[in-house]
C-alpha cells in the first residue's frame, strides 16, 4: 500500500513537471440514482440535481482572473439532469423529455438544454446560455478590465413530422449582449489622443426560420427561409475633465455625448437537393442572403484641442448599406468500387457590399464639413476540389486531393483623404488570386488496434491578400494511434511552413510544429488515468515598414518582426474509487510558454530604441497552471456529497504589456448530488 502511494506521489510529481491541462472542478460528473431510472406509469424517469456553494479567493490581478476564469462565490444549482421516457413509444403528449442544466444560480457560464419529442409527430430542441463576459480592457486602460457585458443566447427548433417524407421546421434564435464597456473617442482631429469613455453596450439579434423538407424517389429537397434582424444601440456620455495625458498633446475632453444606432436585416434563402445511390451521390446547395443595414451617428464633444485651443465638434452620419451574399455548391461522390471513393466539389461565392451614406463632420470653430460615400467591396470566389480515397488492402489505404480556387476582389475607394499618392477621390481596383493545392497520404493498419497515418500538403497562392496570408506553403502530418478497450495511446507530429514574399523588400515566414502525445489507461473499473502532452512551437518572421524616430518619425525599412512561441501544454487526470463509496479525482494542467529561452525581454546591450521596442515583444513567456482535486462520497444510493478545490496560477515573465496581470486564485465548492 505504501509502495502504491509512493508510486502515485512520484508519478504525480513527475507528471506535474511536463504535463498540462484545464477543466473546471464542478459540476461533478458522478451519477446518483438507478441508471435504469424509476418507472411511473408508462414513463421511466431519471433525475439528479447538484446544489452547493462555490467560493473563490483571488490574489493579484482580479481583472485578469475575471477575464480568464471568473468563478465567484455563492449558492449554485451546479448541474441537473432529467429524462422522462415513454416505455412503449406511445406517450400521449410526448415520448421523451431530456433536460440538462449547468451553472444556474449565478455562475458566469450557464446553460440549459431541453428536448421534447413525440415519435412521428414533433421534436423540439431548446438551448439557453448565458455568458458573463469580462474581457481585458483597451490598452488605454492600463490593463484595467472594463468590459463587463452579459450575453444571452437561445435557440429553439421545432420539427413537425420528423419521421415523415414531408417535414416542417420552425426555428427561433436570439442573441443579446448588454452591459458597460470601455471604449475610446478620438477628439478633435485624427492626430489627437483618444479619450477613454464608457459605452453602454446594447445589442440584440433575432432570427426566425421556416423550413420544409421533402423526400421522394430517393431525393431529399430542403428549402429554408430565414428572417434575421439586428439592432445595436450603444450610447456614450461623459461630463467632467479628461486630459489626453500623452506627450505633446494638450487635448482635454469636458463633454462628450454619442449615440450610434445601427439596425440591420438579413433575410435569406437556402435550397438543398441531395441523393445517395449505390454508385453515386449528389449534393447541391444554393443560398442567398440579402443583407441590409441602416446606421446613424450623432456625436458632440467639447474641450481643448491638442494645441490648446477651445474645441467644439459635432459629427452626424446617416446611411444604409447592402450586402447581397450568394453561395452555390455542387458535390458529386462516386463509388465505382467498394474500396474506392471519389468526391468532387464545385462552389461559387459572390459577396457585394455597397450602399450610400452621407457624412458631415462639422467643426464649430472652422465651419468645415466633409462628405463621404460608401466604399464598395466585392468578392467572388470559384473553387473546385477533388478527393480520392482508395483502400488497396484492409491494412493499407491511400488518399489524395487537389484544390483549385480563383478569387476576384473588387474595391472602390471613396475616400476624402486618399492614402496612396496619385489616387483620386473614387478609384476602383480589382485583383485576382489563384490557389493550387495538393494532398497525398497513406493510412496503415497493420493490426486492428493500431493505425498509422502519414500525409502531406503543398499549396501555392498567387497574389495573397495580406503579407501573412498563405502563399507558398506545405504541411506534413504523421499520426500513430493504438486503441484497445483498456488502453488508448496516440502520438502525432504536424508541421506547417508558409513562406510569403509578395515584394522583393518584404517577406513573411511562419513555421509551426506540433508534437502531441496522449494516453488513457483504465486497468480496472475503479481506476483510470489520462495524460496528454503537447508542444506547440511557432516562429514567424515578417519584414516591417513603419515610421519612428527619437526626434521626428522617419521611415524605417530595415527591421523585422520576429515572434517565437514554445508552448508546453500538459494535462493529467487520475480517477479512482475506494470501497465503491468514495470517488476521487485529481488533475493537473499547465500551459507554459518558454519563449525563445532569453533571460530578459530586451537582450542586454541593445541600445537602439527601435530595436529595443521590437525585441521586447518577440516572445511572451508565461505559465498558466491549475491543479485540482475532487472528492465524491456516496451517502446513499440517491445522495452523494462532493467537495473540490482548484487552484489557478497565472504568471507572465516579462511584464510585456507594461503592467502586472499575474494572479493566484483558489476556487472550491461543496455540493450535494441527489436524486428522488
Amino acid at each position, binding site marked *: 500500500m505504501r509502495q502504491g502511494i509512493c508510486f502515485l506521489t512520484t508519478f504525480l510529481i513527475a507528471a506535474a513537471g511536463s504535463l498540462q491541462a484545464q477543466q473546471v472542478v464542478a459540476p461533478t460528473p458522478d451519477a446518483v440514482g438507478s441508471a435504469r431510472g424509476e418507472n411511473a406509469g408508462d414513463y421511466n424517469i431519471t433525475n439528479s440535481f447538484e446544489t452547493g456553494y462555490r467560493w473563490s479567493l483571488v490574489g493579484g490581478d482580479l481583472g485578469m482572473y475575471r477575464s480568464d476564469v471568473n468563478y465567484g462565490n455563492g449558492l449554485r444549482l451546479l448541474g441537473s439532469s432529467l429524462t422522462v421516457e415513454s416505455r412503449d413509444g406511445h406517450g400521449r403528449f410526448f415520448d421523451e423529455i431530456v433536460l440538462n442544466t449547468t451553472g444556474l444560480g449565478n455562475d458566469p457560464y450557464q446553460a440549459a438544454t431541453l428536448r421534447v419529442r413525440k415519435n412521428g409527430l414533433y421534436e423540439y430542441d431548446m438551448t439557453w*446560455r448565458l455568458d458573463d463576459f469580462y474581457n481585458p480592457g483597451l490598452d488605454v486602460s492600463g490593463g484595467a478590465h472594463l468590459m463587463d457585458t452579459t450575453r444571452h443566447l437561445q435557440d429553439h427548433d421545432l420539427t413537425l413530422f420528423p419521421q415523415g417524407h414531408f417535414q416542417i421546421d420552425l426555428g427561433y434564435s436570439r442573441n443579446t449582449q448588454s452591459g458597460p464597456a470601455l471604449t475610446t473617442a478620438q477628439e478633435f482631429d485624427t492626430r489627437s489622443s483618444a479619450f477613454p469613455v464608457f459605452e453602454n453596450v446594447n445589442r440584440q439579434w433575432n432570427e426566425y426560420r421556416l423550413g420544409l423538407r421533402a423526400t421522394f424517389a430517393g431525393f*431529399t429537397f430542403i428549402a429554408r427561409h430565414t428572417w434575421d434582424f439586428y439592432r445595436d444601440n450603444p450610447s456614450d456620455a461623459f461630463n467632467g475633465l479628461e486630459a489626453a495625458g500623452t506627450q505633446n498633446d494638450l487635448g482635454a475632453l469636458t463633454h462628450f455625448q454619442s449615440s450610434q444606432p445601427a439596425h440591420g436585416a438579413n433575410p435569406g434563402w437556402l435550397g438543398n437537393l441531395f441523393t445517395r445511390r449505390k454508385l453515386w451521390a449528389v449534393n447541391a446547395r444554393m443560398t442567398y442572403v440579402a443583407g441590409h443595414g441602416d446606421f446613424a451617428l450623432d456625436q458632440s464633444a467639447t474641450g481643448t484641442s491638442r494645441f490648446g485651443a477651445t474645441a467644439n465638434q459635432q459629427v452626424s452620419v446617416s446611411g444604409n*448599406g447592402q450586402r447581397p451574399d450568394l*453561395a452555390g455548391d455542387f458535390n458529386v461522390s462516386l463509388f465505382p468500387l467498394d474500396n474506392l471513393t471519389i468526391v468532387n466539389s464545385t462552389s461559387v461565392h459572390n459577396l457585394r457590399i455597397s450602399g450610400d451614406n452621407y*457624412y458631415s463632420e462639422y467643426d464649430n470653430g472652422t465651419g468645415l464639413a466633409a462628405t463621404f460615400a460608401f466604399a464598395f467591396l466585392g468578392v467572388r470566389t470559384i*473553387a473546385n476540389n477533388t478527393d480520392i480515397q482508395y483502400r488497396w488492402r484492409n491494412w493499407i489505404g491511400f488518399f489524395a486531393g487537389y484544390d483549385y480556387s480563383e478569387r476576384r476582389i473588387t474595391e472602390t475607394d471613396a475616400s476624402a483623404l486618399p492614402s*496612396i499618392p496619385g489616387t483620386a477621390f473614387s478609384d476602383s481596383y480589382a485583383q485576382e488570386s489563384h490557389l493550387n493545392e495538393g494532398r497525398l497520404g497513406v493510412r496503415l493498419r497493420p493490426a486492428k488496434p493500431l493505425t498509422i497515418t502519414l500525409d502531406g500538403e503543398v499549396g501555392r497562392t498567387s497574389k495573397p491578400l495580406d503579407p501573412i496570408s498563405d502563399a507558398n506553403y506545405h504541411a506534413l502530418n504523421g499520426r500513430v494511434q493504438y486503441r484497445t478497450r483498456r488502453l488508448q495511446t496516440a502520438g502525432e507530429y504536424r508541421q506547417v511552413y508558409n513562406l510569403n514574399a509578395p515584394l522583393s523588400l518584404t*517577406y513573411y515566414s511562419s513555421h509551426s510544429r506540433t508534437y502531441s502525445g496522449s494516453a488513457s489507461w483504465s486497468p480496472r473499473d475503479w481506476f483510470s488515468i489520462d495524460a496528454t502532452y503537447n508542444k506547440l512551437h511557432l516562429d514567424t518572421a515578417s519584414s516591417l515598414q513603419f515610421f519612428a524616430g527619437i526626434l521626428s518619425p522617419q521611415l524605417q525599412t530595415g527591421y523585422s518582426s520576429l515572434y517565437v512561441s514554445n508552448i508546453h501544454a500538459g494535462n493529467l487526470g487520475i480517477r479512482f474509487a475506494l470501497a465503491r463509496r468514495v470517488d476521487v479525482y485529481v488533475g493537473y494542467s499547465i500551459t507554459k510558454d518558454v519563449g525563445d529561452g532569453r533571460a530578459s525581454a530586451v537582450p542586454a546591450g541593445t541600445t537602439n530604441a527601435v530595436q529595443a521596442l521590437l525585441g521586447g*515583444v518577440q516572445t511572451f513567456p508565461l505559465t*498558466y497552471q491549475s491543479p485540482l482535486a475532487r472528492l465524491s462520497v456516496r451517502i446513499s444510493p440517491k445522495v452523494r456529497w462532493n467537495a473540490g478545490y482548484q487552484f489557478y496560477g497565472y504568471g507572465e515573465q516579462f511584464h510585456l504589456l507594461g503592467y502586472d496581470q499575474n494572479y493566484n486564485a483558489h476556487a472550491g465548492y461543496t455540493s450535494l448530488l441527489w436524486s428522488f
Partner: protein
Amino acid sequence: MASAQTGYVGSNVCKTCHADVWFNFYKNPHYRGIASGKEPPQRTGCESCHGPGQAHVEARGGKTTIPHAFSLMTPKQVLADCLTCHAANFDKANIRRSEHTLADIACTSCHSIHHSATAKYLLAKAQKELCYGCHNNIRAQFEMPSHHRVNEGFMNCTDCHNPHGSFAATWGMADRPRMAAQALNNEEPCLKCHVDKRGPFVFEHAPVRIDGCETCHNPHGSTNGRLLRRPVVFTLCLECHNGGGAGTRNQGVDIQSATHNLLDPKYQRCTTCHARIHGSNIDEYFLR
C-alpha cells in the same frame, strides 16, 4: 413483422439473448421504428441495422453470423449502413466529403448506439471529451488563459463545427473548410454569436471580410488576450501594414501613417484610436 422468407426474425427473438441491450432500448431514438409498428422488417428494431438475424439464431450466436456486425465492418460499410436512414438529414448532406470520412472515421467512432454516454445524439462520451480524444492539440488551446468557454460547458465544438462535413468555406480561398458550421447559411461561424461584426460596413476591414477572423485571432484559445495571435497589438497590425501583399488595390497593404511615431507609446496601441477595427460606418480609418 418478422419474415422467415427473407431471414428476418424480429426483435423479440433478439431480446431472448440480448436482454441487457433490449431492456433500455425504448430510450434509444432507434426505438421509434419499433414503436411506429408500420415499418417493414428491414427497418424495424435490431434487424434494421444488423440485418436479418435468422442465420445468427440458427448458429446460436457469433459475430460472424450477424450480417451487419459493426465491429467487423470497414468504416465505409458502417457509413453506408447508417446513411440508409440518416442520409436525408441536412446536417449530414456533406458527410461523403467531410475530413472525418476521408480519414476513415466512421459513425461508430463517435456514436455508441447501445452504450451511449449522452441522452442526445448517442455520443460515446461527452462531446468535448470525444473531440479531445483525437484533437489533442486543440484541447491544449482550449486550456490556454484566453479561450472560448468549451471546458466550462458554455459552448460545444458543434457550435462552430459540423463533424459530419460542411460546404466549401465562403472566406479565404475556399479551401480547408475545417468542417465549419456556417452562420446565416453561408458565413463564418464566428458571426453566429459575434453578430456586431457582421456589418455591412461602409468601410470594411478587408481581411476580416475576405480572409476571415483567423487573420488576427486564434479561434480556440491563445496565451494572448482576446485570442489574438500576438501579445501586443502593434506587431499584429504592422506585420500586414508593411506595404506587402496584394491588398485590395494590388499595391500592398497600406503602411503606417507618417504622423505615427512608433516610439511614442500612444502609437503602439493601435486599437485605442482605431477602436472600430472590425469595420466602421463612419470612418475609413476605423476611428469611430
